[in-house]
């Protein structure tokens, strides 16, 4: 079922959140969910300046920002998120984009784009 909606999940560190929130607001993103999470990437949580990679996985505090948006806006939003989060350092984050079957707004019963 094609709803014309996509989900964007952004996992990043805390330092850029305020700027990201502001940029998303300017793009007309109408809602977001922010969760504090623990996680690591391919470096298993090693610090950028570490001599060698951690043997055991170390989970680092991160935040995950979940957005549901119209599919045609995904490209623009992802570009802005990439530009905003980029520092060139390990830990800038990852962006996951997936298509969504449907969204239902409980209060009104609206579905799809109308539910955003």
């Amino acid at each position, binding site marked *: 079922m094609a709803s014309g909606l996509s989900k964007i999940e952004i996992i990043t560190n805390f*330092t850029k959140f305020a700027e990201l929130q502001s940029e998303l607001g300017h793009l007309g993103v109408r809602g977001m969910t922010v969760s504090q999470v623990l996680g690591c990437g391919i470096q298993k949580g090693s*610090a*950028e*300046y*570490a*001599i060698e990679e951690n043997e055991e996985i170390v989970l680092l505090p991160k935040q995950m920002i979940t957005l549901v948006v119209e599919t045609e806006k995904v490209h623009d939003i992802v*570009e802005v998120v*990439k*530009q905003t989060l*980029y*520092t*060139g*350092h*390990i830990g800038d984050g990852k962006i996951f984009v997936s298509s969504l079957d449907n969204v239902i707004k409980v209060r009104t019963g609206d579905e799809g784009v109308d539910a955003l």
Partner: protein
Amino acid sequence: MEEKKLGLGSVISTSVGLVIATSCLVSLGQGAGSVGIVFIGAMVVACLLNMTTIGSLSELNALMPNITGGLAQYTLACMGPLPTIISMVGGYLICNILSSGVEASIFAYAMAEVIPLPIPSIVYTAVMMIVVMATNLIGVDMFAKVQDLVAFLLVGSMVLMGLIGIFKLGTGTVVVQPANMASSPAEVISMTAVAFWLFIGAEFAIPISGQVKNAKRNVPLGMALGLLVILLMQAIMVLGFYHYTPWDALAESAAPHMLYGELLLGKAGKIWMAFVAALAVISTQNSGVNGLAYIGQGMAKMNMLPQIFAKTNKRGVPYIGVISISAAMFLFAYISDGSSGMIEFLILVGSVFWMITYIFAHIDVLILRKKLPHAPRSFKVPCGPLFPLIGIIGTSYMIFYISTDLHERLMIWLITGVTMLVLGIYAFFWTKYKMKMPVLKAVPIEKVMAMDNEMYYKIRKKRGIW
């Protein structure tokens, strides 16, 4: 999180800061004196060529933002330690210390001429250098406040003096002479080599980019606006020269800006021009001390200079760099006091290295586009490789025509070659035994970024790796 203190205005004033030196005022007068107001055409070409460099450096800064000092790290990540050390030590540290030293001694002469006190001229230099050093030790915000004020007074004064000339409002005699002294378009094009000096150095805004608000927008925009401000201001000055200064007298004068001031407004104009020249020197010294100290700090963090240059005071200023660079500039000001000819020659040699760093910057852009084609760049030079290639060709042309005198040109290339060899030997051993890295292998960008963190060395020292 560290608070960003500087705005667009400070980026513009820092860009303008190093560019407008007394030597530029001399080049401007002599260039205009040679071909007339069509020198503005050569200035436009030179400005556009420098814009390509600013564009490339802005793209590199977008890829590696907030890195201490910048500049050195870009080449390190693209070509490895040896070319980086040669170009940065030769082009930035030595060249700018020499040229700022000579500028400072010119300042002393200007002051001694204007202030009739029985004080040795070097005292003026010493006082100015101490004030600039103290300002920079207080912090980047104090540096910027002084720079904003000096740049505003400098640009304002030059525009005003130019406008007085354009509208024939001066007290001197208006000169009637042909506007164009060039016999062919080729003569104007050849003057771009002279005009190039009027715009070199705007990239000194990059070392402060870590302290700039909205740096992604303000750093490239500020540097470009800085160059445009310089172009506009100097074009106004050339038009002012046209009405008050005979072209041949301008071309032959050792201090054409002072000549213009005198012919425009008499003794008052000469004093005003001396004041402008003094501001130009203060501006150059201030930008130079600040920029070089941060470049030195960045190089020390990459272990390309002794670690002592990375030490900061409680205001985050690399104070060893500020003090040692100020002292070195003063030393050269003292040495060049009366024997500036040889040092000016050495500046030309250093400038070749400086231009080589510009060429490296363009090459870095092309390499990183290949290595990191998808990395988000908040600023990207448009039209693919076109502008970096124009920059490489144009800057090579400037190196080729570094001097109009063939003998001097050959000597410059010879000394450049010898210096490059000496620096190359030093860089080879430093890289091999101190940095313990392959001399010509590019350092991965993530490692360059990691080396910027002071913990990189702390944990290695703790483990006995350093």
